[in-house]
């Protein structure tokens, strides 16, 4: 957010309501953090009163609990199981449909989602980094995914600097956080009395102009910057490097794959909560009258039996090969496809794994650096502000 600190303004706490009203007035449906079934999820909200305060998300391997935040902040929860991904890459949606007439002739037509413009309040730097990777996959030059593109164009992102990382967070080590540096329309840094706010797009600037705020003071900007640095320094997990490609691909028969496979349930939770995972199945859902059929895509997981299915055999019949596929794709071959790792350090796969498998621990063991160094200082990670 401090790419343009000179432009920073200040949104007092009581004006959060005005921000939401302005977004609604400009036609956005606001999706904001909402506690549901013991976790923070994004749901439609209409007022700042709908935003939870004083909630923290305590996360450790296999563990997620909402607890009280003594500082009574809006955004003290580090993250929830989902943020942006379901709003651009829907968990299930029709891609096209087909109608069969009495003569048996087939008529195909594309199906568009026709979603309203959506503003998501409270996305994190890791979520924005993940969105950039989803964009690279679904909006690839010459291969634009029409449904994704429509949802993406209608998205307005209000980012928030992370001030209270969970124990599972390691965005400083991947270089993706904790302070948003781009990809948002508006970005907030929460201080005791309000928010330092900057815009990152023309859409964001239009909203900011409508709010008619005072510039942030030098002290407020410094406080936000220091908060980001402190958050990075507070992270206790890290990956052993930003590019583990060659090391991992040299260790494809490492005994650790057997060991992690013995613990892994192949449930696919990690891939469901991972903000960069893009695998999806394509299935037909025929109508009962037999005249039409919807061709849908549904999130899929490389941990599932069907993912590696070929006629007559399964490419990945055991959990070892499925875990290895997931981890080597995320941390190694992602570099070949997208020029960077597929991990943004959000830690969701660690918290939501029912048996608490820790990606950072597995990566360290597989790259033979189990004597993990202490977390890097923020200056070395580059994610400190």
């Amino acid at each position, binding site marked *: 957010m401090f790419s343009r600190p000179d432009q920073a303004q200040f949104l007092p706490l009581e004006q959060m309501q005005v921000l939401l009203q302005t977004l609604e007035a400009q036609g956005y449906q606001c999706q904001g953090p909402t506690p549901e079934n013991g976790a923070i999820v994004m749901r439609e909200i209409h007022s700042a009163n709908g935003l939870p305060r004083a909630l923290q998300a305590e996360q450790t391997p296999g563990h997620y609990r909402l607890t009280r935040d003594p500082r009574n902040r809006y955004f003290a929860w580090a993250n929830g199981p989902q943020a942006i991904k379901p709003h651009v890459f829907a968990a299930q949606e029709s891609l096209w449909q087909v109608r069969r007439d009495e003569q048996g002739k087939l008529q195909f037509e594309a199906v568009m989602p026709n979603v309203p413009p959506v503003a998501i309040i409270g996305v994190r730097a890791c979520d924005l980094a993940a969105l950039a990777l989803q964009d690279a*996959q679904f909006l690839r030059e010459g291969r634009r995914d029409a449904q994704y593109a429509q949802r993406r164009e209608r998205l307005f992102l209000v980012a928030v600097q992370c001030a209270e990382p969970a124990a599972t967070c390691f965005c400083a080590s991947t270089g993706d956080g904790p302070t948003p540096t781009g990809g948002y329309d508006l970005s907030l840094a929460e201080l005791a009395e309000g928010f330092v706010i900057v815009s990152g797009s023309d859409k964001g600037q239009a909203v900011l102009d409508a709010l008619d705020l005072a510039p942030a003071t030098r002290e407020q900007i410094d406080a936000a910057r220091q908060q980001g640095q402190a958050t990075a320094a507070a992270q206790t997990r890290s990956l052993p490097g930003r590019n583990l490609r060659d090391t991992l691909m040299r260790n494809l*028969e490492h005994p650790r794959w057997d060991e992690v496979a013995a613990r892994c349930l192949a449930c696919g939770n990690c891939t469901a909560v991972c903000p960069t995972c893009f695998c999806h199945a394509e299935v037909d859902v025929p109508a009962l009258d037999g005249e039409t059929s919807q061709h849908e895509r549904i999130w*899929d997981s490389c941990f599932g039996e069907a993912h590696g299915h070929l006629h007559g055999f399964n490419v990945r019949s055991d959990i070892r090969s499925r875990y290895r596929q997931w981890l080597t794709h995320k941390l190694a071959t992602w570099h070949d496809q997208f020029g960077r790792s597929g991990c943004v350090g959000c830690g969701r796969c660690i918290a939501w794994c029912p048996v608490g498998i820790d990606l950072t621990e597995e990566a360290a063991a597989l790259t033979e650096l189990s004597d993990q160094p202490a977390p890097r200082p923020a200056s070395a990670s580059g994610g400190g502000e």
Partner: protein
Amino acid sequence: MPSCPPGCKPIDAGPPHAATVVARTQESPTIFTLQLRLDDAAAQAGYRFAPGQFNMLYLFGVGEVPISIMSDPDAREGIGHTIRAVGRVTRGLAALQPGDKLGLRGPFGRGWPLQEMGGRDVVLVTGGLGCAPAVSVIHYVLRRRERFGKLVVIQGVKHADDLIWREQYDRWAKLPDTQVLVAADEGAALWPWHVGRVTELFDLAQFNPARAVAMMCGPEGMMRVTAEQLLARRLPESSLYLSMERNMQCAVGRCGHCQFGGAFVCRDGPVFNWGDVKALLPHRGF
């Protein structure tokens, strides 16, 4: 390698184009060939593909399957697909008769290295139904015979009864500068060819490794042994190609199922140079 020849306009992620079965041939008890035409005359006229590419065929209400194109790119009688009835979609496709409708999108992926083949010996090693993607390249060479050196077709099947297109192999075997070597792990009465592994035929193959291009299609174990044998005969690695098979659902590098290391087989393959896949191929599970 070009993704498709000049004039090729790939049909993208969908929806498919309506198509009609114009001919159906039963090749064996479970294998059949469908010749298809796109219902839209302009789309059919503009349809171009390269040998080795594949289409997604859609069966109403059931779903899609990737099927390689076996016809000659210049053939006008239809777009040919040889299919084995093994799954939900392919068993449904097996029931289609001339005049029946289905959906088609494609062609997808990178085909065989036709440009590199000019003036060189062409060696094709195929196993099982692996012959389908290779048949289109055989047709391609035979129709433009003067452009290429020797043609060596090496085909292996598990059982003698699995060999389809037997008359075709007989016919090719009689052509000049063309060698056909067939092996069945298990023979049968009147089986004129070798009984044993396809890889036992390499000593009989007559080609100049220094000026040959070799193409493989079939089970990965068979292709790995074939590669060893060909490389041992001093075929340069850069002259060795294979067609890979993976679970393909979107065909445009999006759904993630067909990833092989960093490659999306549907988009970056299915034809690869040996050097691009040799490191990962021995590791089961990719």
